[in-house]
Structures are given as structure tokens and as C-alpha cells.
């Protein structure tokens, strides 16, 4: 699982409870996340460098001579050493400058509209996932080993095994092409956003269904774990109604595991977005990325990776903090 995975292997952290201690701990967690992001970027930068051809040839046109290509390479700075370009790129980052794409456009500008669009999509899908998986997971957990439980468990297991493009194709056929209920594709207005909210429904569903499958299992499993703890058993013995035991005792204890499960879903949502956005013509960074990889546009790919990586880091960080807070509170 996510970062704290090793928790079981190392001694549980019981950092100081003073304000200073908390600050140091938070700073440490943040620092670690930032460092990892930097390492990831270096790796991606190097990997893209290994791709055959480069951005100069990708942006070239038929009939350009070798000399024209060399000039284009020079204009793009591709004739400079790799480490030098990487250093330049990294030092410009804190100012919000993501460099220039192979086609001479500001990467920040290219991503300015798509990133919020993808965030709208991903956050909607994530919220839907959380709500659905909590409901389904709790519902199943209050009926352990009964039909409802098995139904939920098996359905969610099935749901998370199905790739997003299969879900998308099914949704497109059923909800749009055969019935005409929903717009088949996203059309963008002058503000750079989808013109109607109904255009979001199918992409959000396509992303949320597999993730709901996964997280329902996480919730169900975490609640089962909690059910076996002494304080929950004690609550049952005290004669508290099941839904109260669930809300007051089982669920709070399961929060860290659930938070981690949902955090890991974020990365998967970004992966799924590449496919889903292309299929529904949704103007997000997934669609930008698909094109950028084909064009070997290093700065653009790196820009997308840092955006995705930063968002995922934030969510993981939040999960870290939730975990620390709940564990700290119960320690």
C-alpha cells in the first residue's frame, strides 16, 4: 500500500505531541514526498530521452533537410547536454515555469485549461467512489456472510478487474448511442470548460466504477478487521444497535486503511483518464499526454507527469496526515 506500508515492519511512529514536534513531523513527511517527486522527474526525463527520435523530428514536416532539422534542434535546445537541460528545467519549476513544448508553446499555458478539467473529472470520480464504496462497504459489513455481503463483494471484485475502456464502450453504447440520453462527447465552450454538466456523467462513471469496486473491498475488509477488535465486540455486547456500532466504533478505526486505499486510487484515476478522455473527447491532461507521448515532446510529458505526481503526492500526504492524526489520537 502507500507510503506508510512499511509501518508494520518498522516501529510505529510516536512522534512528539508538542506543536514543535508535530511541525517537525509534518515537515519531514512533506520533505520526503517532495524528494520523491524530484527523483521521479529525473527518471521520467531520462526515460523520454531514450525514446527514438526527438521532439525536433516529431515537429518537422516532410521535405525538411538534415540542416533544417539541426536548426530546429538548436532552436529547441536539444543539442545541449541532458543534465544541463534537466537542471534548467528544475530550477525554473519553483517559478511555475514548466518550459516550452516542442512546438514552441509554453507548457504552463498548454496545461492551464486541461489540468483543471482533469481535476474536475478526477475529483468528481473520487467523490463518487468514496460515497459509493463507503455505502456499499458498510452495508455489506453490517450483514457479514449474508447474501448481500457476498453480492457486494463479488460485484466489486468483478468491477475492479474491468479496464476503463471496456466500461466506457459499454456506457457509450447504452447511455448515448442507443438511447440518446446523454451527449456522446464533450464539447468545450469559450471558457475552456465543458458546455453542459451532463457531458461529465459518462467519463466520471467510467472512471469511478472500477475504483468503486476496489475501494468497496478496502472498506469492507477494514470494517471486518475492526469488527474483530475488542472495543467493537464490547460495544456489541453492550447492546448498542449495529448502525451505531458501525458509525461510532467500527468506521473511525477503519479510516486510516480507507484513506490509504482511496489515495492509491488517485494514481489509477490519472491512468484511466488517458483512455477515458480520449474516448469522450474530454479536454483534459490525459488527452494532452497521449498526444505528447506520440510526439516525444519531453517538456510536455514532464509537465504532465509533474502535475499528476504533485496531485498524487498531495493526496498521499493527506492520507499520511490522516493516518498520523487518527493513530496519534488513539495512541
Amino acid at each position: 500500500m502507500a507510503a506508510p506500508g512499511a509501518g508494520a515492519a518498522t516501529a510505529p511512529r510516536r512522534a512528539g505531541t508538542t506543536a514543535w514536534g508535530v511541525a517537525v513531523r509534518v515537515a519531514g513527511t512533506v520533505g520526503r514526498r517532495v524528494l520523491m517527486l524530484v527523483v521521479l522527474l529525473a527518471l521520467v526525463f531520462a526515460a523520454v530521452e531514450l525514446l527514438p527520435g526527438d521532439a525536433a523530428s516529431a515537429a518537422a514536416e516532410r521535405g525538411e533537410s538534415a540542416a533544417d532539422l539541426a536548426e530546429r534542434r538548436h532552436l529547441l535546445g536539444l543539442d545541449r547536454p541532458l543534465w544541463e537541460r534537466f537542471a534548467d528545467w528544475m530550477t525554473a519549476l519553483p517559478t511555475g515555469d514548466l518550459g516550452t513544448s516542442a512546438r514552441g508553446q509554453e507548457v504552463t499555458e498548454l496545461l492551464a485549461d486541461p489540468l483543471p478539467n482533469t481535476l474536475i473529472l478526477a475529483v468528481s470520480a473520487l467523490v463518487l467512489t468514496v460515497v459509493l464504496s463507503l455505502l456499499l462497504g458498510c452495508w455489506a459489513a453490517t450483514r457479514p456472510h449474508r447474501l448481500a455481503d457476498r453480492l457486494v463483494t463479488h460485484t466489486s471484485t468483478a468491477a475492479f478487474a474491468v479496464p476503463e475502456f471496456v466500461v466506457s464502450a459499454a456506457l457509450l453504447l447504452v447511455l448515448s448511442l442507443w438511447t440518446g440520453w446523454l451527449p456522446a462527447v464533450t464539447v468545450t465552450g469559450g471558457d475552456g470548460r465543458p458546455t453542459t454538466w451532463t457531458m461529465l456523467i459518462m467519463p466520471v462513471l467510467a472512471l469511478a466504477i472500477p475504483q468503486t469496486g476496489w475501494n468497496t473491498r478496502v472498506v469492507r475488509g477494514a470494517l471486518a478487521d475492526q469488527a474483530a477488535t475488542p472495543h467493537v465486540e464490547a460495544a456489541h455486547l453492550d447492546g448498542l444497535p449495529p448502525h451505531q456500532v458501525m458509525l461510532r466504533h467500527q468506521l473511525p478505526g477503519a479510516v486510516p486503511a480507507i484513506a490509504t486505499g482511496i489515495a492509491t486510487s488517485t494514481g489509477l484515476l490519472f491512468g484511466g483518464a488517458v483512455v477515458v478522455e480520449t474516448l469522450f473527447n474530454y479536454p483534459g491532461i490525459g488527452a494532452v499526454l497521449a498526444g505528447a507521448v506520440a510526439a516525444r515532446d519531453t517538456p510536455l510529458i514532464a509537465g504532465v507527469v509533474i502535475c499528476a505526481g504533485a496531485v498524487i503526492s498531495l493526496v498521499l500526504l493527506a492520507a499520511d496526515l490522516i493516518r498520523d492524526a487518527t493513530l496519534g489520537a488513539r495512541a
Partner: protein
Amino acid sequence: MGVTRRQLLWAGSGIGAAGFLAACSGGSDDSRNAGSAGADGKPRPGGTLRVGALGHASAITRDPHGTQTNESDYLVIALVFDTLTIPGAKTNTAPRLSASWESSADLKTWKFTIAEGAKFHDGSPVTAEDVVWSLKRLRNTPSGAARLPGIQAKNISAEGTGTVVVVSDYANADFPLMTRFASFVLKKDTEDSAIEKAPGTGPFKLDWYRNGNARLVRNDDWYGPAVHLDAIEVTMFETPQAMANALIGGQIDLASNAGAVAARTAEAREDIQVLRRPDDMAMPIVMRTAEGSPFADERVREAMRLVVDREAMVKQVLSGYGTVANDIMGTGDPDYAGDIPQRERDVAKAKQLLRDADFDFSRTYELVTTEDIAGLADSATLFANQAGDAGIKIEVVKQESGAFWEKTWKAGDFYTTYWGTNDSVVFYASKTMVSEAGQNEAGWQDAGFDAAYREAISTDEPKRRATALTELQQIEHERSGYLLWGMADGIDLAAAKVQDLPKLAGYGRVQLEGVWLS
């Protein structure tokens, strides 16, 4: 001949094809098919046309002199800015910002006269200085040498305020043809940073542009014929099927270049018109003719051209939306040699030729292709399958686009290529077949062909030119490195209310200024 080649072929292919072919081959007599046929009234002014065009968010280009790989970007640019000339119906080059042009006797010096009353969107008149500056800017881009072949920047100059003089390094009777696509005119000294909002001279003004999508409004001061639409909204689509789905769902009014499969999906629907622009895209197979290639022997190339089942290719790869071709590039040219007999499939003869040429049947030959355009990889797959009938083993290798253009194109022994400019035989001869051509895809060198080509471009005397062009096409048909099995139609889908849509192939599809809504 009384019957054109195309009519003959339609009759031929109609037999084998299923019902859908019959439905779409009628073209002219099907009222849903032709925008012009429905135009029984006078054009009605007003309304907004919502157009879908293909493009990738990562490849957005706003510079009119940049490399526009996105059709959506080219469409926006072509409606806001004007080129000197445009593709035409009767002659393959028609006037636009340049009202007329003439050449010196040696066909090296060309003078273009700027259209009367041409103004930029900010009201200032277009001068020769603006055009000279724009052409020089175009020439100085990395791809400038390919876009203005034979022209050096220093040889572009103004003569008075209304005439531009361009001097070519060599005689070139077809130079105006080269100004049809990219010679967009901007105001002199437009800064690179101001390009995106720079005023053009075209039939529409830019209202807004965002991430590939745009809204354009009518330019009431345009020097050309009356523009009917109030506005055009352009939406960029990543895939043709997303675009077709949008049209079927009524989210757009016109799907530009939507492709054959979308057309078949729409054929059954009364509310959608399918427009076919013939001779839109050539997808030839290139066989390297140089020494060392398995296709160096003329007989092997002939055998390959005999082994292909052209009707089947058109039917399966293009869903019937196309025509059979005769291994001559530039099928849309008014001077196309339609009387050269059509090459038909003859597997027995192909086998004989291959045996005569000591062809190595034990080897597996790699046919390299890409997925740059719809149907290209499919055509390679199907051809490989057909060649199996003659005992030729072909393995299709799909390359990623960038690697293909860098490594295989112009160098490989056996690959597919594609071209969107098909209304000029000379265009191909000069660009891809004459010995010294910069993009000689098959590495072909043929003294007879070269002589015919030089004769054709160095004369403007119609008869001599016609004779030379026929000779040129005959040689190309017999010996070149191309196997051109067919031509794909350009296919646009439109809502029933859209009238007078563009009918020309290739870049002609962007000519939306005459469109109106009923």
C-alpha cells in the same frame, strides 16, 4: 471516351459490393448527398455553423507559417487568413488574395497582383510589402524550403503597392500551385508574440480561441463574394469516432473529414448528409527502385502491381468510399491520363514475372506502415494478404509515426506513404519522382521520365505540355516505384440544414465561406 474512368469503375465495383455501396455510389442523384442539389433557394444569411475537425491538444499550432498537424488549427487559420491562391475546381489553382498572376517567358519570374479592396481585419489595406514580408517569413521557417520550393528569400520583392515579384531558381510552370497551402498573409512586422491575435484578411475574424476550439465571426468587409454565416464555431476532436458521435447526437453541424466508417454509420439516417470529395487521399505502397532493393527489378514492381486486388482494397479498406487507381499519382489533375488502360489483377502473370526476375519466394518481406491516417495500416495488412495468393510472403510492420518519418521514409525498401494533394500530376513528378527530387520516396531514377518532366514544366504551350504530361504518366504507370491501388474520398458529414459545402479534395475542405444554413 464517352464514359469516364470513374463511372466505369463504379459500375465494376458495385457488383461485388454489398448494399451500402449501391447506397453511396449514386452521389449526384441522391439529394441527401449533394449540398448543391438541395440549394433550390437563394442562400439565406445568418446562423452559426458548428464544425468539428480533428486535432490533438498536444499539437496545437497557432502560427499560420508553423507546421499545422491539426486539421482544426489549419481550418481556423485558413478562415482568418488568406493565401495568395487556393485550390480550384476548373483549374487546380484559383485566385484568392492574389487576383491574378503571370510569368515571364522563361517561367522563372512570377508576378502576383493583390486583390482589389483587400483589407486586414483592423481596416488597413493589404500592401505588397505585407505579402513580401509574409512570404519571406514563411521561407525562413525550418520547413520553408519545402513550402516555397526553388525560391530564395532574397528573390521575393514588391513592385509598387499592389504587385509581388517572386523569382524562382529554375523554370517552374506550376509555381502558383505551391502558394495554395501556406502563403498566409499577415501584416508586415507582426511580432511572433502577437501572432495569435494578429489580424488576417480572411472571410472570418477570430472571436476567441481556446485549446484548439474557436469561434469566428463574419468579416463584413471581405473583398471576396458575400459570406452568409454569422459565425463558425470550431470544436477539436481527438478521434474521428468521437466527432461522428457528436454529429449523430446533434452536438455539431458538420464533421470535417470524418472518414468512411462514420459515413456508413450515418448513411442510414435521414437527417445527416454524407458529402464525398473524390481524389482526397492517396495511400500508395512505395517499392524502392535502387540497387540492392528486392524491387530494383522492374518486373518485380510490375508483379506487385498485378497482384493487388484493387476493387477489394477499395471495398475493404475504404468501405467503398473511394475509387480504384492506376498507379499514377495526381488523379485529380484535369490533365490526368484517364485513357491509359486500367491495370487489373493477374496473379498468374505476376508469378511468371517474379520467376523471370529470380524473385526470392523463400524470404519474408517487411512492409512498413504507420497509423498516421485511417486505413493506412489496414491497406498494408490487406495487401500482404493478397500477395500471399502469388506466394509472396509479406509481414506488415507498424512503426510509430516519428520513427517512420525519420528512419523508413525515403530509405526503406517497402513501405506505405500518403499524400493529400492529388490534383496535380506535376506536383508529384517534381516532388517525389524526378531523379533529383528532394522527396524521391522510391529512389527512382529514370532518364525518360526526367526528360518528359522537364519538357512539361518548361513550356506553357498547351499542346506540347499535354503531350509531355501524357508521356510522363505513361512512364510512371509502367516503371515507377509506386503501387497506387486507389484513392480515398474525403468524407464530410453534415446536418441536413447545411448547404453549399466544399466539394474539393484535400485542403479544399476548409473553404467554408460559401456555406449557409437553410
